[in-house]
């Protein structure tokens, strides 16, 4: 799950860099309709991963892996 989250975040960042390098209608559409959902999905997966590892329990000793 951690690898999928990292991959989605990397895709989102690649779209961001492409948008900054050449801003036009196509890259802006990619940024808004593909990059942002990919980043949101990555963050969601990361939070679920951390939750399953017990990070949000009281006195949790879960690792950050």
């Amino acid at each position, binding site marked *: 799950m951690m*690898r999928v989250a990292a991959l989605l975040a990397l895709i989102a*960042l690649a779209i961001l860099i492409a948008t900054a390098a050449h801003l036009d*209608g196509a890259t*802006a559409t990619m*940024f808004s309709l593909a990059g942002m959902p990919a980043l949101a999905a990555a963050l969601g997966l990361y939070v679920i991963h951390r939750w399953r590892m017990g990070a949000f329990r009281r006195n949790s000793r879960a690792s*950050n*892996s």
Partner: protein
Amino acid sequence: MTPAPAGPLFISPPVEPVVDWPRVLPVLVALPAVAILAWGLVRGRLPPAAGVAGLVLPIAAYGLGMLMLMEDSKDVRFCGSCHVMTPIVESMHATDDSSLAAIHYSRGLVPTAEACFTCHSGYGIWGTVGAKRAGVMHMLRSLTGRYHLPLELNGTFDINSCLGCHAGAATFRAVAAHQDPDVQQALLSHAVTCTGACHPAAHPEEALTGGKAPS
């Protein structure tokens, strides 16, 4: 068409920044995030500090990217980069007073770099928000092909965009038709618009049909 005269005097805005920070900052923040996430992708886990950085940096990069997009998408070149808008932006360069947009653009009556945004957004922060919301809908329509030619304005044009500049102008106030109370009431109630009866169309019909002659 005669070639446009060149030279630093004709560049707007006249002083270009050495570093385009709105475009550079998101990349500067994104690059360390890419390194951390690539590390996480290979190893399948991250140390605590790197995990926090891998979470915060992409969010910060996207926040800066959104600011960049908000600002740079006001540019006329951005508006004209979608195929359906290209003929409209090209038609603004006409010098024959064939459309209101061409009159304003070719005479420098609106900031030439942000001409589309100047007339198609309201005033204040909510005007900008409304224009950006409309821009997202344009993206969706372009992506799904759900637009129809000839292009038509969604709703009525907000003449406050015109009055923001013209209402206080002596030449505007001096026109007898503008002083007529009935005309004023009709304009402010959106019963009539500036274009059509009195002033030329905002954009030529050919441009609204995608550059083809109207049938």
